[in-house]
């Protein structure tokens, strides 16, 4: 069962363990992906989400299936948090017909529109205007849906970010812009790319309300997204969350890490880790025993997903040809 939201207020064992489990699923999923990539079963450009789980889970936990999420190149976590579909994601990464995009898209292009997951994106900043469009459609149709755009601080230097924020504010569209400032865009540190990394200031420039969030603390994310949702659902226009976090893994499969060891070490401590963080906030609700139990469950589900993907057929060329080649 999906237990909704407001872990801080409800604070129930069920809510906390559900959130924990979803973050753990993303963590272990990504670790498997890394292994399978090394073993040659997964290929292409793979950007891992490890360390940022609190943002995807905190945000998506507060959303309905009817709300929209537009993701990025680093989208596995967003996909899992919004849809819960571990098998479809794994099969997609292995290029199988049972993948969530039928094996056509791969890591950067997972889709599940029925659950409001409107796709990853290979173009940095490319998804923000699409999210704007979904927000427009929601308002146009008079539904109460919101549209969430995830993007990195790197993407905030694209024109699409600025143009979309302005347009959303102008038309009072239900857009929630979620910046995941993980301090690097590929090898470029935020200081070298972004004149002022305080996204709340950029938002203010377009008359958009914003909150600065500790992106490694799922409770903080959860509180912020609920504030954003009440603002946006009340028709008051867009909202921006500036989530501070860190990319613990290298940028992408092929690129060597150039970051200083001391810096990496700080972000690899238990205090920074979003999973440990939640457990330490609720030691009574998340005992070591319960965590061990969740580990078992998650690993079992992932074993099943990997088996499912391995046993799935590849897409059929004839069918693809008929459907897509003009």
């Amino acid at each position, binding site marked *: 069962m999906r237990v909704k939201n407001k872990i801080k207020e409800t604070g129930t064992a069920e809510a906390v363990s559900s959130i924990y489990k979803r973050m753990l699923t993303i963590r272990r999923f990504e670790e498997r992906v890394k292994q399978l990539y090394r073993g040659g079963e997964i290929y292409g*450009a793979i950007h891992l989400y490890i360390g940022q789980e609190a943002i995807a889970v905190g945000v998506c936990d507060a959303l309905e299936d009817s709300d929209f999420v537009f993701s990025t190149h680093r989208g596995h976590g967003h996909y899992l948090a919004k849809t819960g579909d571990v098998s479809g994601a794994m099969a997609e990464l292995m290029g199988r017909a049972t993948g969530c*995009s039928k*094996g*056509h898209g*791969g890591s950067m292009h997972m889709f599940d529109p029925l659950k409001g997951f409107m796709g990853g994106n290979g*173009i940095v900043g490319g998804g923000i205007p699409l999210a704007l469009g979904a927000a427009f459609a929601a308002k146009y149709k008079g539904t109460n849906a919101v549209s969430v755009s995830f993007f990195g601080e790197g*993407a905030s230097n694209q*024109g699409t970010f600025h143009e979309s924020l302005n347009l959303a504010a102008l038309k009072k569209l239900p857009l929630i812009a979620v910046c995941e400032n993980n301090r690097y865009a590929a090898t470029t540190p935020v200081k070298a790319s972004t004149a002022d990394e305080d996204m709340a200031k950029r938002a203010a420039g377009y008359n958009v309300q914003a909150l600065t969030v500790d992106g490694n603390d799922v409770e903080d994310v959860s509180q912020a997204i609920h504030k954003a949702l009440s603002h946006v659902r009340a028709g008051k226009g867009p909202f921006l969350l500036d989530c501070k976090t860190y990319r613990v893994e290298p940028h992408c499969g092929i690129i060597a890490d150039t970051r200083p060891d001391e810096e990496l070490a700080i972000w690899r401590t238990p205090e920074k880790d979003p999973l440990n963080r939640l457990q330490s906030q609720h030691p009574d609700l998340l005992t070591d025993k319960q965590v061990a139990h969740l580990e078992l469950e998650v690993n079992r589900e992932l074993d099943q997903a990997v088996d499912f993907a391995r046993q799935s057929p590849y897409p059929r060329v004839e069918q693809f*040809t008929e459907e897509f080649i003009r």
Partner: protein
Amino acid sequence: MKSMTYIEAMNEALAEEMERDPSVFIIGEDVDVDGGVWKETQGLAERFGLERVIGTPISESAFTGLAAGAAMCGLRPVLEFMYMDFVDVAMDQLCNQIAKLPLMSGGKVKMPITIRMCGTGTGTREAAQHSQSLEAWFAHIPGFKVVMPATAKDAKGLLKSAIRDDSPVVFIENRNIYYKKELVPEGEFTVPIGEAEVVQAGSDVTVVTVGYSRSKVIAAIEKIGDACSVELIDAKTVDPLDMKTFLDSLAKTGRILIVQEAHTECGIGSEIVRRVVAEGFDLLDCPPVVIGSKNCPTPFSPVLEDAVIPSINEIMGKIMLLKQYKI
């Protein structure tokens, strides 16, 4: 000759041109950190300073315009897109500004920009937004020259020519051959823009390759062996086309195949066919043939990607079909 990779050859070209001409500078994402994601600028920031090797935010439109404005004022930028696909974001600056300013200014403004399209290619399972060969876009817009080196030697020689050229040159690289060692002449040399190369002489069928397809055609020719005498021509420059070299070959063979990685529709192959028909109709013994990627965005799954990009088997088949065509 010395052995080096395509990436090392470009690195050497960049270093030599920066040494030779202080107005040359490099601008693009991550170029200043540890040689960029492809390692082509390795050591250049240390050697020439961060004033001349400029890392940028992910703001393709703005840094392309920056290069254009700087070129108008006498600098010689080498602009880099991490993948060719990302150039889409900067198309106004490229096509409405860079390509047109020299003419619109009555020739008073020059645009000596080299626009490096890194990481172009297919077959590495990077899906639809990281697999496009967009040379035809730039060949279509008057104002650009477009080169597509397929060897380490041409990468170095054409890059040096591009940097010295007073027009904007779109320089399209290929990731599939970035790290393969090849022999490159030592010392100073350039490769002229606008000249194709007869890589192998033959008498049955002319095969013109565009960019990376050269490697696939060489593999196909090896497999065909004595069954067909192929004249292999690497186009090298796709705008302006070296029609003379193609037509001279066609005069011997009467049959021509063009192989490109880009989608077949409205590609460079189509343009070569148009000009072959217009300028060499009497030389043709049979209809010209173009092989390219199928007309769909490039899918991720290996089975699908392999089915839509040109394959060695498909190339062999078409070469033999042309040879066997009865007049």
